[in-house]
């Protein structure tokens, strides 16, 4: 009886030998760009392999996190070897993915995945991009300047996915914000007046009836002011 019990306990040891531990590799990915529209439905985070290293493929299990809101995404395997030098990984919301012409995200994240009023997005424990209020004009994003400590600059968004597909998106904060200024103002009014009359396909044809008319003017006035 005792020997059987001992044999049982001894037999458990090999199972205990297999333990999951930390993940390995993927050191040189950096948070390169962050974008968010005024209501957080269209957001993306772009990672970039910073250093020309071709085998940074150990991303499986690496987490992208928001300092304020927690886990954004856990990355998986890249599915390739010798493939990472200067590449990008794109995490974006479904609404971004649905935009015509937008590069297909490599990962879909939830809306408002990070705090648009200011946050720090971190790749694993290797790189954090801290930033203030995200540009809400629907065009500009925060770009990492490539330096250490990390600083950001504002420029037109340029999301790029792992396949290398890239495009710049423009998201109006309001349908009447035809110049993407982040609000409805005099310049939008002037644009509308300039297109007054039959104008199929015009951005100032806010109701899409093929003509810029009083209804469009009223819609513009109803949205007057900066976008929230």
């Amino acid at each position, binding site marked *: 009886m005792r020997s*059987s019990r001992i044999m*049982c306990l001894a*037999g*458990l*040891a*090999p*199972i*205990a*030998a*297999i*333990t*999951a*531990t*930390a*993940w*390995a*590799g993927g*050191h*040189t990915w950096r948070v390169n760009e962050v974008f968010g529209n005024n209501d957080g439905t269209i957001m993306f985070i772009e990672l970039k392999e*910073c*250093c*020309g*290293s*071709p*085998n940074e*493929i*150990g991303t*499986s*299990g690496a*987490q992208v996190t928001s300092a*304020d809101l927690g886990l954004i995404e856990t*990355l*998986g*395997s*890249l*599915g*390739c*070897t*010798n*493939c990472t*030098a*200067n590449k990008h990984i794109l995490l974006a919301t479904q609404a971004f993915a649905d935009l015509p012409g937008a590069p297909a*995200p*490599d990962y879909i994240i939830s809306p408002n995945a990070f705090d648009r*009023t200011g*946050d*720090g997005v971190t790749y694993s*424990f*290797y*790189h*954090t991009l*801290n*930033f*203030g209020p995200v540009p809400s004009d629907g065009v500009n994003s925060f770009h990492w300047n*490539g*330096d*250490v*400590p*990390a*600083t950001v600059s504002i420029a037109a968004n340029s999301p790029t996915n792992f396949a290398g597909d890239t495009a710049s998106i423009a998201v109006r904060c309001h349908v009447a914000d035809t110049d993407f200024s982040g609000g409805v103002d005099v310049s939008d009014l002037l644009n509308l007046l300039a297109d007054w009359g039959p104008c199929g396909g015009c951005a100032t044809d806010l109701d899409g009836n093929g003509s810029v008319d009083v209804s469009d003017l009223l819609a513009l006035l109803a949205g007057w002011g900066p976008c929230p």
Partner: protein
Amino acid sequence: MPAQVVRPLTAAQRKTMSGRRRATGRSRGAVGACRALIALPLLALSILTCCSREPVTEARPGEPLPTAPEPAMLASLGGDHAGNRPMSESASSAAPGLGDAEQIAHLALHDISIDPLAQCACADMRQAGGWCRRCGVGWLAGIRIPSADLYIALDSHGHQFVTLSVDCPSCLDAVSVDGHCDEHHRGFASHRMYTSTLAWAVARGRLIEPGSLNCDRCRTNAARCGWCDTCAAGQVGSLRFGSIDVFSHAMRERERLVESVRTLAQCEMCAIVMFTDATCPRHRPLPSDDATRTGRGDGPSAGVKVTTSP
């Protein structure tokens, strides 16, 4: 957990087990359970013996354990995190001189699995640097590192890189002189790139066997770290440095590692970000340390919110 296959017991085993059951009067169910407990681990052990040298990409605790990649699988791994669009495989591009063998070697260097049945390698790793699978600790510059994440973050083995892919003039200059690019915070030694200053410092040393040293002072230094004016060489453990500047830098980095290991007790992330370009999300700004340490991740971005954990 790797898949387990149950093989039926041999006739001799069954006879032996049956005899014991008659002698002890055990119930059939209890003995059957015992048979399974004995057979399965023995089988698992035989599988482990064959496969234990395969590099394993491990998940973080709490995350699903990915399949251990085998050489034939590395080129054919597809898909990614469940529920997301698969990564495109069209991006594969062969860098000159790099293939699956390099990839396997890369994974092996980063093998930080734990195996209680393995032999303790701490004595060797303390000198040479590396991970002891038995004890689950890493060693670098003679310092014991009880955190796998910190050990990985130190990037002790460095990275391959393709020179043509390096677009920073400062980095290219650093490559040619085994130097450091302060702008991008990368060090280079023997045509490998290091993302932590500690790893770069260690990489510029030469590993020697302390017993081979003829100088008494140098042998003492190998045990306690120090510089020998007679030999114009410094020892940081088993690492020998021929330049006092490089030696001094290595000593400073070693001290930072000591401080980092101490910090583990309070916050692992804080300990880790002392050597990376990240910020601890719970403790912003970072704890004070060497002012020359760049890469704290809390740079002067406009409107940075500063939060501190309770």
